Protein backbone atom coordinates (compact mmCIF):
# COMPACT_ATOMS: atom_id res chain seq x y z
CA UNK A 1 0.00 0.00 0.00
CA UNK A 2 1.11 3.52 -0.74
CA UNK A 3 -0.64 5.65 1.86
CA UNK A 4 -0.79 9.40 2.20
CA UNK A 5 -2.38 11.34 5.04
CA UNK A 6 -5.85 12.67 4.29
CA UNK A 7 -5.42 16.46 4.54
CA UNK A 8 -8.80 16.76 6.29
CA UNK A 9 -7.71 14.43 9.11
CA UNK A 10 -5.64 16.60 11.44
CA UNK A 11 -7.45 17.29 14.69
CA UNK A 12 -7.66 14.00 16.54
CA UNK A 13 -4.26 12.89 17.88
CA UNK A 14 -5.45 9.32 18.58
CA UNK A 15 -6.72 8.53 15.11
CA UNK A 16 -5.79 9.55 11.58
CA UNK A 17 -7.04 8.73 8.09
CA UNK A 18 -4.79 7.69 5.20
CA UNK A 19 -5.68 7.29 1.54
CA UNK A 20 -4.22 4.90 -1.00
CA UNK A 21 -4.98 6.48 -4.36
CA UNK A 22 -3.82 3.62 -6.56
CA UNK A 23 -5.87 0.95 -4.80
CA UNK A 24 -8.64 3.36 -3.80
CA UNK A 25 -8.38 2.40 -0.13
CA UNK A 26 -9.16 4.35 3.03
CA UNK A 27 -7.24 3.25 6.12
CA UNK A 28 -7.43 4.61 9.65
CA UNK A 29 -4.70 4.41 12.27
CA UNK A 30 -5.67 4.03 15.94
CA UNK A 31 -3.43 4.51 18.96
CA UNK A 32 -3.88 2.27 22.03
CA UNK A 33 -6.57 4.52 23.54
CA UNK A 34 -8.47 4.74 20.28
CA UNK A 35 -8.17 0.99 19.79
CA UNK A 36 -9.75 0.40 23.20
CA UNK A 37 -12.54 2.79 22.18
CA UNK A 38 -12.99 0.92 18.90
CA UNK A 39 -13.19 -2.41 20.73
CA UNK A 40 -15.83 -0.94 23.04
CA UNK A 41 -17.72 0.30 19.97
CA UNK A 42 -17.70 -3.06 18.18
CA UNK A 43 -18.93 -4.74 21.37
CA UNK A 44 -22.14 -2.67 21.42
CA UNK A 45 -25.51 -3.89 20.20
CA UNK A 46 -25.93 -0.99 17.81
CA UNK A 47 -22.62 -1.45 15.95
CA UNK A 48 -23.61 -4.51 13.83
CA UNK A 49 -26.98 -2.91 13.07
CA UNK A 50 -25.37 0.38 12.00
CA UNK A 51 -22.89 -1.59 9.87
CA UNK A 52 -25.54 -3.54 7.99
CA UNK A 53 -27.85 -0.53 7.54
CA UNK A 54 -24.99 1.65 6.28
CA UNK A 55 -25.54 4.26 9.02
CA UNK A 56 -21.85 3.85 9.83
CA UNK A 57 -19.38 3.28 7.00
CA UNK A 58 -18.44 -0.39 6.48
CA UNK A 59 -15.29 -0.97 8.54
CA UNK A 60 -12.97 -3.89 9.14
CA UNK A 61 -9.79 -4.26 11.17
CA UNK A 62 -6.59 -5.04 9.24
CA UNK A 63 -4.27 -7.87 10.38
CA UNK A 64 -1.40 -5.46 10.81
CA UNK A 65 -0.56 -1.76 10.55
CA UNK A 66 0.72 -1.03 7.00
CA UNK A 67 4.40 -0.03 6.97
CA UNK A 68 3.76 3.20 5.04
CA UNK A 69 1.54 4.56 7.84
CA UNK A 70 3.74 6.63 10.10
CA UNK A 71 2.44 7.45 13.57
CA UNK A 72 1.77 5.94 17.00
CA UNK A 73 -0.65 3.36 15.60
CA UNK A 74 -1.56 0.26 17.55
CA UNK A 75 -4.04 -0.93 14.94
CA UNK A 76 -5.40 -0.07 11.52
CA UNK A 77 -8.94 -0.16 10.14
CA UNK A 78 -10.06 -0.17 6.55
CA UNK A 79 -13.17 1.78 5.60
CA UNK A 80 -15.27 1.35 2.48
CA UNK A 81 -14.48 4.26 0.17
CA UNK A 82 -17.26 6.78 -0.45
CA UNK A 83 -17.53 7.30 -4.26
CA UNK A 84 -17.18 11.10 -4.03
CA UNK A 85 -16.45 13.04 -0.85
CA UNK A 86 -18.66 16.11 -0.50
CA UNK A 87 -18.69 19.01 1.94
CA UNK A 88 -21.48 20.74 3.89
CA UNK A 89 -20.78 23.84 1.79
CA UNK A 90 -22.12 21.83 -1.17
CA UNK A 91 -25.17 20.38 0.57
CA UNK A 92 -28.66 21.80 0.63
CA UNK A 93 -30.85 22.40 3.67
CA UNK A 94 -32.42 18.93 3.54
CA UNK A 95 -29.01 17.28 3.21
CA UNK A 96 -27.58 19.13 6.22
CA UNK A 97 -30.74 18.28 8.14
CA UNK A 98 -30.46 14.59 7.21
CA UNK A 99 -26.79 14.60 8.24
CA UNK A 100 -27.68 16.27 11.57
CA UNK A 101 -30.42 13.74 12.33
CA UNK A 102 -28.17 10.80 11.43
CA UNK A 103 -25.44 12.19 13.68
CA UNK A 104 -27.85 12.64 16.60
CA UNK A 105 -29.44 9.22 16.14
CA UNK A 106 -26.10 7.42 16.13
CA UNK A 107 -24.93 9.47 19.09
CA UNK A 108 -28.08 8.62 21.03
CA UNK A 109 -27.56 4.91 20.38
CA UNK A 110 -23.91 5.24 21.41
CA UNK A 111 -24.73 7.08 24.65
CA UNK A 112 -27.18 4.33 25.61
CA UNK A 113 -24.24 1.92 25.52
CA UNK A 114 -21.66 4.07 27.30
CA UNK A 115 -20.04 5.79 24.33
CA UNK A 116 -20.11 9.35 23.03
CA UNK A 117 -18.66 11.13 20.00
CA UNK A 118 -15.65 13.40 20.49
CA UNK A 119 -17.08 15.98 18.14
CA UNK A 120 -20.09 16.90 16.00
CA UNK A 121 -18.53 17.68 12.69
CA UNK A 122 -20.71 17.55 9.56
CA UNK A 123 -17.61 16.41 7.64
CA UNK A 124 -18.05 13.18 9.65
CA UNK A 125 -21.12 12.46 7.55
CA UNK A 126 -20.86 11.64 3.86
CA UNK A 127 -23.49 10.91 1.25
CA UNK A 128 -23.50 7.82 -0.91
CA UNK A 129 -26.05 8.94 -3.45
CA UNK A 130 -28.79 10.32 -1.22
CA UNK A 131 -27.93 8.10 1.76
CA UNK A 132 -26.03 9.76 4.61
CA UNK A 133 -23.42 7.60 6.31
CA UNK A 134 -21.30 8.36 9.38
CA UNK A 135 -17.63 7.94 8.47
CA UNK A 136 -15.69 9.00 11.55
CA UNK A 137 -15.42 5.71 13.42
CA UNK A 138 -12.53 7.27 15.37
CA UNK A 139 -14.91 9.79 16.91
CA UNK A 140 -16.51 7.28 19.32
CA UNK A 141 -15.05 7.17 22.79
CA UNK A 142 -16.07 5.74 26.16
CA UNK A 143 -17.93 8.22 28.35
CA UNK A 144 -16.15 9.23 31.52
CA UNK A 145 -18.40 9.76 34.47
CA UNK A 146 -19.85 13.25 34.71
CA UNK A 147 -18.31 14.43 31.50
CA UNK A 148 -20.34 16.57 29.09
CA UNK A 149 -20.69 15.88 25.36
CA UNK A 150 -17.78 17.87 23.99
CA UNK A 151 -19.42 18.16 20.57
CA UNK A 152 -22.38 20.27 21.73
CA UNK A 153 -20.95 23.63 20.75
CA UNK A 154 -19.74 22.30 17.42
CA UNK A 155 -23.16 20.80 16.74
CA UNK A 156 -24.71 24.24 17.29
CA UNK A 157 -22.17 26.00 15.05
CA UNK A 158 -22.11 23.49 12.23
CA UNK A 159 -25.62 22.06 12.14
CA UNK A 160 -28.17 23.79 14.33
CA UNK A 161 -27.39 27.47 13.71
CA UNK A 162 -27.20 27.22 9.90
CA UNK A 163 -30.39 25.12 9.77
CA UNK A 164 -32.30 27.49 12.05
CA UNK A 165 -31.15 30.63 10.25
CA UNK A 166 -32.01 29.08 6.88
CA UNK A 167 -35.45 27.98 8.10
CA UNK A 168 -36.11 31.56 9.27
CA UNK A 169 -34.87 33.03 5.97
CA UNK A 170 -31.88 34.79 7.51
CA UNK A 171 -29.11 32.93 5.71
CA UNK A 172 -29.04 30.61 2.76
CA UNK A 173 -27.58 27.12 2.87
CA UNK A 174 -25.09 26.30 1.49
CA UNK A 175 -23.87 29.72 0.41
CA UNK A 176 -23.54 30.92 4.01
CA UNK A 177 -21.34 27.91 4.87
CA UNK A 178 -18.77 28.54 2.17
CA UNK A 179 -16.77 31.13 4.06
CA UNK A 180 -15.69 29.09 7.08
CA UNK A 181 -15.18 25.44 7.94
CA UNK A 182 -16.31 26.25 11.48
CA UNK A 183 -19.92 27.14 10.82
CA UNK A 184 -21.84 29.93 12.55
CA UNK A 185 -20.92 30.82 16.16
CA UNK A 186 -23.67 31.37 18.78
CA UNK A 187 -23.10 35.15 18.97
CA UNK A 188 -23.64 35.59 15.24
CA UNK A 189 -26.61 33.24 15.19
CA UNK A 190 -28.21 35.10 18.09
CA UNK A 191 -27.72 38.47 16.42
CA UNK A 192 -29.39 37.23 13.24
CA UNK A 193 -32.26 35.32 14.82
CA UNK A 194 -35.66 36.98 14.25
CA UNK A 195 -37.83 37.79 17.27
CA UNK A 196 -40.48 35.13 16.64
CA UNK A 197 -37.71 32.51 16.74
CA UNK A 198 -36.11 33.96 19.87
CA UNK A 199 -39.36 33.34 21.71
CA UNK A 200 -39.28 29.61 21.05
CA UNK A 201 -37.92 28.22 24.36
CA UNK A 202 -35.64 25.66 22.70
CA UNK A 203 -34.07 28.26 20.41
CA UNK A 204 -33.90 30.79 23.22
CA UNK A 205 -31.74 28.37 25.20
CA UNK A 206 -29.57 26.94 22.44
CA UNK A 207 -28.96 30.19 20.57
CA UNK A 208 -29.82 33.36 22.54
CA UNK A 209 -28.79 32.19 26.00
CA UNK A 210 -25.85 30.36 24.46
CA UNK A 211 -24.53 33.61 23.02
CA UNK A 212 -25.01 35.41 26.35
CA UNK A 213 -23.30 32.65 28.33
CA UNK A 214 -20.44 32.56 25.92
CA UNK A 215 -19.93 36.31 26.05
CA UNK A 216 -20.13 36.43 29.85
CA UNK A 217 -17.80 33.52 30.43
CA UNK A 218 -15.29 34.40 27.73
CA UNK A 219 -11.73 34.60 28.99
CA UNK A 220 -12.56 33.00 32.34
CA UNK A 221 -11.08 29.65 33.19
CA UNK A 222 -14.30 28.39 34.67
CA UNK A 223 -14.41 24.71 35.53
CA UNK A 224 -18.08 24.35 34.69
CA UNK A 225 -17.50 20.74 33.70
CA UNK A 226 -16.23 19.92 37.19
CA UNK A 227 -19.01 21.88 38.86
CA UNK A 228 -21.64 20.09 36.79
CA UNK A 229 -20.11 16.73 37.58
CA UNK A 230 -20.43 17.51 41.28
CA UNK A 231 -24.01 18.60 40.72
CA UNK A 232 -24.83 15.20 39.23
CA UNK A 233 -24.42 15.54 35.45
CA UNK A 234 -24.09 12.26 33.56
CA UNK A 235 -25.03 10.29 30.46
CA UNK A 236 -28.75 10.77 31.16
CA UNK A 237 -28.22 14.50 30.73
CA UNK A 238 -26.42 13.99 27.40
CA UNK A 239 -29.21 11.72 26.25
CA UNK A 240 -31.82 14.36 27.13
CA UNK A 241 -29.78 17.00 25.26
CA UNK A 242 -29.69 14.86 22.14
CA UNK A 243 -33.45 14.24 22.25
CA UNK A 244 -34.04 17.98 22.55
CA UNK A 245 -31.73 18.74 19.63
CA UNK A 246 -33.44 16.05 17.55
CA UNK A 247 -36.83 17.66 18.20
CA UNK A 248 -35.58 21.10 17.22
CA UNK A 249 -33.90 19.89 14.01
CA UNK A 250 -36.92 17.80 13.00
CA UNK A 251 -39.18 20.82 13.39
CA UNK A 252 -37.18 22.97 10.95
CA UNK A 253 -38.47 23.32 7.41
CA UNK A 254 -37.20 25.17 4.39
CA UNK A 255 -39.44 27.26 2.17
CA UNK A 256 -38.71 25.81 -1.26
CA UNK A 257 -41.74 27.08 -3.11
CA UNK A 258 -39.90 28.82 -5.90
CA UNK A 259 -36.58 29.74 -7.42
CA UNK A 260 -35.21 30.94 -10.71
CA UNK A 261 -34.75 27.40 -12.03
CA UNK A 262 -37.33 25.30 -10.26
CA UNK A 263 -39.65 25.12 -13.28
CA UNK A 264 -36.86 24.40 -15.73
CA UNK A 265 -37.19 20.64 -15.49
CA UNK A 266 -40.41 20.87 -17.49
CA UNK A 267 -38.24 21.95 -20.43
CA UNK A 268 -41.01 23.99 -22.01
CA UNK A 269 -38.55 25.62 -24.38
CA UNK A 270 -37.50 22.32 -25.98
CA UNK A 271 -39.56 20.58 -28.62
CA UNK A 272 -40.24 16.91 -28.04
CA UNK A 273 -37.94 16.07 -30.96
CA UNK A 274 -35.26 18.32 -29.43
CA UNK A 275 -35.37 16.47 -26.13
CA UNK A 276 -35.24 13.01 -27.69
CA UNK A 277 -32.37 13.93 -30.05
CA UNK A 278 -30.41 15.25 -27.09
CA UNK A 279 -31.17 12.13 -25.05
CA UNK A 280 -30.15 9.89 -27.93
CA UNK A 281 -26.83 11.74 -28.30
CA UNK A 282 -26.00 11.57 -24.58
CA UNK A 283 -27.00 7.93 -24.16
CA UNK A 284 -24.83 6.96 -27.14
CA UNK A 285 -21.78 8.51 -25.50
CA UNK A 286 -22.57 6.96 -22.10
CA UNK A 287 -22.95 3.51 -23.64
CA UNK A 288 -19.61 3.78 -25.43
CA UNK A 289 -17.71 4.96 -22.32
CA UNK A 290 -19.52 3.09 -19.48
CA UNK A 291 -18.19 5.67 -16.99
CA UNK A 292 -17.86 4.81 -13.31
CA UNK A 293 -18.56 8.46 -12.44
CA UNK A 294 -20.49 11.04 -14.47
CA UNK A 295 -20.28 14.70 -13.50
CA UNK A 296 -23.48 16.45 -14.58
CA UNK A 297 -22.90 20.23 -14.52
CA UNK A 298 -26.10 22.27 -14.46
CA UNK A 299 -28.11 19.13 -13.71
CA UNK A 300 -31.33 20.87 -12.64
CA UNK A 301 -33.86 18.07 -12.01
CA UNK A 302 -31.21 15.42 -12.70
CA UNK A 303 -32.93 14.02 -15.81
CA UNK A 304 -29.66 13.51 -17.68
CA UNK A 305 -27.91 12.01 -14.65
CA UNK A 306 -30.72 9.46 -14.51
CA UNK A 307 -30.40 8.88 -18.25
CA UNK A 308 -26.66 8.27 -17.86
CA UNK A 309 -27.28 5.78 -15.04
CA UNK A 310 -29.85 3.95 -17.18
CA UNK A 311 -27.32 3.59 -19.99
CA UNK A 312 -24.45 2.14 -18.00
CA UNK A 313 -22.91 4.84 -15.80
CA UNK A 314 -22.31 3.59 -12.26
CA UNK A 315 -22.54 6.84 -10.27
CA UNK A 316 -23.68 10.36 -11.09
CA UNK A 317 -22.78 13.66 -9.41
CA UNK A 318 -25.63 16.02 -10.24
CA UNK A 319 -24.61 19.62 -9.59
CA UNK A 320 -26.47 22.87 -9.99
CA UNK A 321 -26.00 26.36 -8.64
CA UNK A 322 -29.64 26.62 -7.53
CA UNK A 323 -30.09 25.24 -4.00
CA UNK A 324 -33.86 24.94 -4.44
CA UNK A 325 -33.69 22.56 -7.43
CA UNK A 326 -30.91 20.50 -5.81
CA UNK A 327 -32.85 20.31 -2.56
CA UNK A 328 -35.89 19.07 -4.47
CA UNK A 329 -33.76 16.52 -6.32
CA UNK A 330 -32.26 15.35 -3.02
CA UNK A 331 -35.67 14.86 -1.45
CA UNK A 332 -36.88 12.86 -4.47
CA UNK A 333 -33.76 10.67 -4.46
CA UNK A 334 -33.89 10.25 -0.71
CA UNK A 335 -37.49 9.11 -0.63
CA UNK A 336 -36.63 6.60 -3.37
CA UNK A 337 -33.65 5.36 -1.32
CA UNK A 338 -31.26 6.18 -4.19
CA UNK A 339 -27.57 5.41 -3.71
CA UNK A 340 -26.22 6.26 -7.15
CA UNK A 341 -26.90 9.97 -7.65
CA UNK A 342 -25.14 12.52 -5.45
CA UNK A 343 -26.91 15.89 -5.70
CA UNK A 344 -24.67 18.86 -4.89
CA UNK A 345 -25.21 22.59 -4.90
CA UNK A 346 -22.24 24.01 -6.78
CA UNK A 347 -21.90 27.43 -8.35
CA UNK A 348 -18.98 27.31 -10.78
CA UNK A 349 -18.72 31.08 -10.71
CA UNK A 350 -18.43 31.19 -6.90
CA UNK A 351 -16.84 27.97 -5.74
CA UNK A 352 -15.47 26.93 -2.39
CA UNK A 353 -12.31 24.94 -1.93
CA UNK A 354 -9.11 25.34 -0.03
CA UNK A 355 -10.17 26.59 3.37
CA UNK A 356 -9.62 25.17 6.81
CA UNK A 357 -6.11 24.59 8.12
CA UNK A 358 -3.65 26.68 6.10
CA UNK A 359 -6.05 26.58 3.16
CA UNK A 360 -5.20 22.92 2.55
CA UNK A 361 -7.76 21.07 4.61
CA UNK A 362 -10.60 21.08 2.08
CA UNK A 363 -10.19 20.63 -1.63
CA UNK A 364 -12.13 21.97 -4.57
CA UNK A 365 -14.97 19.71 -5.75
CA UNK A 366 -13.50 19.50 -9.25
CA UNK A 367 -10.40 17.84 -7.74
CA UNK A 368 -12.51 15.36 -5.75
CA UNK A 369 -14.87 14.11 -8.45
CA UNK A 370 -12.44 12.32 -10.81
CA UNK A 371 -15.15 11.96 -13.48
CA UNK A 372 -14.94 9.62 -16.43
CA UNK A 373 -17.56 11.60 -18.31
CA UNK A 374 -18.70 15.21 -17.97
CA UNK A 375 -22.12 16.47 -19.06
CA UNK A 376 -22.28 20.20 -19.71
CA UNK A 377 -25.75 20.58 -21.16
CA UNK A 378 -27.50 23.93 -21.61
CA UNK A 379 -24.99 25.59 -19.31
CA UNK A 380 -22.28 27.31 -21.33
CA UNK A 381 -24.51 30.24 -22.40
CA UNK A 382 -25.30 31.00 -18.76
CA UNK A 383 -21.62 31.00 -17.86
CA UNK A 384 -20.41 32.88 -20.93
CA UNK A 385 -23.25 35.39 -21.27
CA UNK A 386 -24.87 35.91 -17.84
CA UNK A 387 -21.78 35.33 -15.69
CA UNK A 388 -19.39 36.87 -18.27
CA UNK A 389 -16.83 34.07 -18.07
CA UNK A 390 -14.54 33.93 -21.11
CA UNK A 391 -15.30 30.86 -23.25
CA UNK A 392 -11.61 29.94 -23.16
CA UNK A 393 -11.71 29.75 -19.37
CA UNK A 394 -14.81 27.51 -19.47
CA UNK A 395 -13.12 25.18 -21.97
CA UNK A 396 -9.99 25.04 -19.77
CA UNK A 397 -11.98 24.02 -16.68
CA UNK A 398 -13.78 21.30 -18.64
CA UNK A 399 -10.52 20.04 -20.15
CA UNK A 400 -8.73 20.02 -16.78
CA UNK A 401 -11.29 17.48 -15.54
CA UNK A 402 -9.45 15.08 -17.84
CA UNK A 403 -12.50 13.24 -19.17
CA UNK A 404 -14.66 13.24 -22.31
CA UNK A 405 -17.31 15.97 -22.29
CA UNK A 406 -20.76 16.16 -23.85
CA UNK A 407 -21.27 19.86 -24.45
CA UNK A 408 -24.48 21.49 -25.60
CA UNK A 409 -23.99 24.87 -27.24
CA UNK A 410 -26.98 27.17 -27.75
CA UNK A 411 -26.03 29.47 -30.65
CA UNK A 412 -26.60 33.23 -30.26
CA UNK A 413 -29.86 32.95 -32.24
CA UNK A 414 -31.26 30.31 -29.86
CA UNK A 415 -34.29 31.81 -28.04
CA UNK A 416 -32.80 31.20 -24.56
CA UNK A 417 -29.36 32.51 -25.54
CA UNK A 418 -30.94 35.48 -27.29
CA UNK A 419 -32.87 36.32 -24.13
CA UNK A 420 -29.66 36.38 -22.13
CA UNK A 421 -27.83 38.34 -24.84
CA UNK A 422 -30.58 40.97 -24.95
CA UNK A 423 -29.53 42.07 -21.45
CA UNK A 424 -25.99 42.79 -22.65
CA UNK A 425 -24.67 45.99 -24.21
CA UNK A 426 -25.54 45.96 -27.94
CA UNK A 427 -27.05 42.49 -27.36
CA UNK A 428 -23.66 40.88 -27.86
CA UNK A 429 -20.91 39.07 -25.98
CA UNK A 430 -17.59 39.13 -27.84
CA UNK A 431 -16.35 35.60 -28.38
CA UNK A 432 -19.80 34.02 -28.12
CA UNK A 433 -20.23 32.72 -31.66
CA UNK A 434 -20.02 29.24 -33.11
CA UNK A 435 -16.67 29.70 -34.87
CA UNK A 436 -14.92 31.39 -31.93
CA UNK A 437 -16.19 28.77 -29.50
CA UNK A 438 -15.16 25.88 -31.73
CA UNK A 439 -11.68 27.39 -32.03
CA UNK A 440 -11.43 27.47 -28.23
CA UNK A 441 -12.72 23.88 -28.00
CA UNK A 442 -10.14 22.61 -30.51
CA UNK A 443 -7.36 24.15 -28.43
CA UNK A 444 -7.98 21.49 -25.72
CA UNK A 445 -10.26 18.84 -27.25
CA UNK A 446 -10.92 16.90 -30.41
CA UNK A 447 -14.53 16.90 -31.55
CA UNK A 448 -15.44 13.20 -31.75
CA UNK A 449 -19.08 13.73 -32.77
CA UNK A 450 -21.47 16.60 -33.23
CA UNK A 451 -25.13 17.01 -34.11
CA UNK A 452 -27.37 19.99 -34.64
CA UNK A 453 -30.48 19.53 -32.50
CA UNK A 454 -33.94 19.94 -34.11
CA UNK A 455 -34.74 23.65 -34.22
CA UNK A 456 -31.25 24.37 -35.63
CA UNK A 457 -30.22 26.67 -32.79
CA UNK A 458 -28.33 24.21 -30.59
CA UNK A 459 -25.32 22.02 -31.33
CA UNK A 460 -24.30 19.10 -29.18
CA UNK A 461 -20.70 17.85 -29.19
CA UNK A 462 -18.86 14.84 -27.85
CA UNK A 463 -15.39 16.09 -26.95
CA UNK A 464 -12.30 14.05 -26.14
CA UNK A 465 -9.43 15.74 -24.33
CA UNK A 466 -6.43 16.04 -26.64
Amino acid sequence: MNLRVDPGSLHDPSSQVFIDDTEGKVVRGLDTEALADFEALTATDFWPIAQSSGDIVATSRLDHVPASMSGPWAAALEHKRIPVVSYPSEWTFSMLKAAALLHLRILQEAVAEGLVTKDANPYNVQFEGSQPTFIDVGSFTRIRSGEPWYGFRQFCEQFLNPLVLHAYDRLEIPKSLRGSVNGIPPTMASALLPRRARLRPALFTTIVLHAIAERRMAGRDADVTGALRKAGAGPALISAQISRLEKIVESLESDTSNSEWSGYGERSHYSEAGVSAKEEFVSHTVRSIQPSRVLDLGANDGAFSRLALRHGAAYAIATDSDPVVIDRLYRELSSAGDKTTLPLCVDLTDMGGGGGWAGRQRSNLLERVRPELVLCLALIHHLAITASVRVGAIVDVLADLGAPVVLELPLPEDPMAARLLARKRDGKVPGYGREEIETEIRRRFTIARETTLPGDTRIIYELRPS
Partner: protein
Amino acid sequence: MFAYLDPGAGSVLIAALTAGFAGVAVVFRMYRDRVLGVFSKKRRTQAEEARQQLLGTDAEESVEPKG
Protein backbone atom coordinates in the same frame (compact mmCIF):
# COMPACT_ATOMS: atom_id res chain seq x y z
CA MET B 1 -10.13 9.69 26.23
CA PHE B 2 -8.54 12.69 24.67
CA ALA B 3 -11.29 15.13 23.89
CA TYR B 4 -9.57 17.42 21.45
CA LEU B 5 -12.37 19.98 21.31
CA ASP B 6 -12.51 22.76 23.85
CA PRO B 7 -16.16 22.65 24.82
CA GLY B 8 -16.26 26.24 26.10
CA ALA B 9 -17.54 26.96 29.61
CA GLY B 10 -20.64 28.78 28.39
CA SER B 11 -21.52 26.00 25.98
CA VAL B 12 -21.26 23.32 28.68
CA LEU B 13 -23.72 25.26 30.79
CA ILE B 14 -26.12 25.75 27.88
CA ALA B 15 -25.78 22.09 26.92
CA ALA B 16 -26.98 21.18 30.40
CA LEU B 17 -29.93 23.58 30.14
CA THR B 18 -30.80 22.13 26.72
CA ALA B 19 -31.40 18.83 28.47
CA GLY B 20 -34.65 20.27 29.83
CA PHE B 21 -35.92 19.71 33.36
CA ALA B 22 -33.09 17.40 34.47
CA GLY B 23 -30.52 19.84 33.15
CA VAL B 24 -32.15 22.83 34.77
CA ALA B 25 -32.18 20.90 38.06
CA VAL B 26 -28.46 20.17 37.77
CA VAL B 27 -27.62 23.78 36.95
CA PHE B 28 -29.86 24.90 39.82
CA ARG B 29 -27.98 22.63 42.23
CA MET B 30 -24.81 24.20 40.92
CA TYR B 31 -26.02 27.75 41.51
CA ARG B 32 -28.29 26.96 44.49
CA ASP B 33 -26.18 28.72 47.04
CA ARG B 34 -26.07 31.84 44.96
CA VAL B 35 -29.83 31.92 44.47
CA LEU B 36 -30.63 31.26 48.12
CA GLY B 37 -27.87 33.66 49.12
CA VAL B 38 -30.35 36.48 48.63
CA PHE B 39 -31.95 35.35 51.90
CA SER B 40 -29.03 33.99 53.89
CA LYS B 41 -25.60 35.29 54.65
CA LYS B 42 -24.23 31.79 55.17
CA ARG B 43 -25.42 30.80 51.71
CA ARG B 44 -23.89 33.95 50.33
CA THR B 45 -20.48 33.05 51.77
CA GLN B 46 -20.80 29.51 50.41
CA ALA B 47 -21.79 30.85 47.03
CA GLU B 48 -18.81 33.17 46.94
CA GLU B 49 -16.52 30.27 47.79
CA ALA B 50 -18.09 28.11 45.11
CA ARG B 51 -17.83 30.94 42.64
CA GLN B 52 -14.15 31.42 43.34
CA GLN B 53 -13.61 27.71 42.99
CA LEU B 54 -15.49 27.77 39.71
CA LEU B 55 -14.05 30.85 38.10
CA GLY B 56 -10.69 31.20 39.77
CA THR B 57 -9.77 34.00 42.18
CA ASP B 58 -9.04 36.54 39.46
CA ALA B 59 -12.53 36.21 38.02
CA GLU B 60 -13.39 39.82 38.69
CA GLU B 61 -10.26 41.43 37.31
CA SER B 62 -10.11 39.73 33.92
CA VAL B 63 -6.85 41.38 32.97
CA GLU B 64 -5.09 39.47 30.23
CA PRO B 65 -1.43 38.83 30.98
CA LYS B 66 0.77 40.79 28.64
CA GLY B 67 3.85 39.39 27.03
